[in-house]
């Protein structure tokens, strides 16, 4: 195992009186594919959003390559440029074509030249099989297509880690496959990924580590064979039993 790229210590997050995350300790190493599973409302997405500073943690620290990004002196924008995020609702820019969606961050944030940005965007769009659709606007694409473009947009920023917030939850069953296939490919290429998902088969097959969350705490954390084959905690067993029956 290499150095942790992400180390989270005593992270808590409250919305008003409601404590969503309770004293989370957690780390991600370079090249890890970590999936976070758990029931809705267990705090999975909030944890991911805290890591990207879309939510401000109430307390605790998030060390990124050893330095605390929750510090006052850290500019969230320049930190986020290094951390890719793929959302459940895609969040593609509606006013731009597919190609422009994948270029705007490169030209405006990373200050790359237009030619370089376009070549890079095309490389990743080809990778997710969306290169024929570069002139389309997001509203003209299916959900699965949008999510593949969103993945290409995140990749085009050359992130050091990629966060996925339930990337297939808003998709029709037949579109889930095409997005998961892209993610499988990415995992194989050695990308560091942190994935919140309800796709248990995917979590079992692709991840190097599975984290099970319940009521704002990490309940169990281990290799996929262990979590799915031989869960230690009663809560994990219950959750998986309910999921497998469905």
């Amino acid at each position, binding site marked *: 195992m290499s150095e942790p790229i992400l180390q989270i210590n005593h992270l808590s997050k409250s919305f008003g009186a409601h404590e969503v995350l309770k004293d989370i300790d957690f780390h991600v190493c370079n090249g890890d594919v970590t999936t976070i599973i758990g029931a809705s409302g267990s705090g999975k997405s909030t944890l991911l959003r805290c890591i990207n500073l879309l939510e401000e943690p109430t307390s605790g620290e998030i060390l990124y390559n050893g330095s605390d990004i929750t510090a*006052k002196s850290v500019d969230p924008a320049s930190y*986020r440029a290094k951390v890719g995020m793929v959302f459940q609702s895609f969040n593609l820019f509606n006013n731009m074509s597919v190609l422009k969606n994948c270029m*705007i961050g490169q030209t405006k944030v990373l200050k790359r030249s237009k030619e370089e940005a376009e070549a890079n965007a095309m490389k990743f769009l080809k990778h997710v099989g969306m*290169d024929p659709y570069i002139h389309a*606007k997001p509203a003209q694409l299916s959900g699965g297509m949008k999510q593949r473009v*969103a993945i290409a947009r995140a990749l085009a920023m050359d992130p050091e880690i990629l966060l996925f917030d339930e990337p297939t939850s808003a998709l029709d069953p037949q579109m889930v496959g095409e997005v998961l296939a892209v993610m499988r490919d990415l995992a194989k290429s050695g990308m560091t990924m942190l994935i919140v998902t309800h796709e248990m088969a995917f979590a079992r097959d692709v991840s190097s580590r599975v984290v099970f969350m319940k009521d704002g705490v990490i309940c169990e954390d281990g290799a996929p064979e262990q979590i799915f084959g031989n869960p230690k905690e009663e809560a994990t067993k219950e959750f998986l039993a309910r999921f497998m029956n469905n």
Partner: protein
Amino acid sequence: MPSFFENIAELLQRYGMTYLSGAGTTLLISLVGTFFGCVIGFLVGIVQTIPVDKKRDSKFKRVILAVVRAILRAYVEIFRGTPMIVQAVFIYYGARIVFGINMGMWTAAFFIVSINTGAYMAETVRGGIMSIDVGQTEGAKAIGMNHLQTMLYVVLPQTFRVIIPQIGNNYIINIKDTSVLSVISITDLFFAHKSAAGALYTYFESATIVMVIYLTMTLVTSFLLRMLEKKMGGSDHYDLATKDTLALTSGTYNFPDKKKSEVDHK
């Protein structure tokens, strides 16, 4: 009613140029006023929607922002809450008497219409920004854009598209409302009507002419704005960037063109 048409003909003959130049004045003032009103509206709307980061923003920045916002809020309420005809007199004569500035009626007219439209547009822009899905902002933040970039490239272009109908509304309202500027001696279309009708005692006939001119101006404006809206919406289908002709058979249309597909079927 032969005399009606005769009167109209006479009015047009003698005062045609007066009407036309009045209409020109009306168009110019409302165009300039709406344009600068939009600029003011966007600036105020943007300032009102700057997020405050309690943790990272300095106290100084937060205080300044709060003060600026209070001033802008007052501006919006004052200019939305008083009639433009009173504002015109208040500002034009106020500037001269209190500050000793003679604005000149043209400057005064542009200024008053702009600042009045700006007050309405500020709220329109604020509403437009709020109507854009928060996911758009989060998507922009997630690729590392700061607030200014997020606004400039993602939120405001979409806001503009949403508020075009409101901009059109304001422009049309301005075409009609500039008539009140005759209180500061602006010779707009309504002023032209008053002088022509008063000279020949042909109120009904002159009003007919002026109605037609106003309606023509507003209808042309509506039409142009619809065109702009349509153009900004973009094409409803797109071309695939591939030479693979098989790919062309799948999913190139968003909203199939009804008329076209009917033709295809025949």
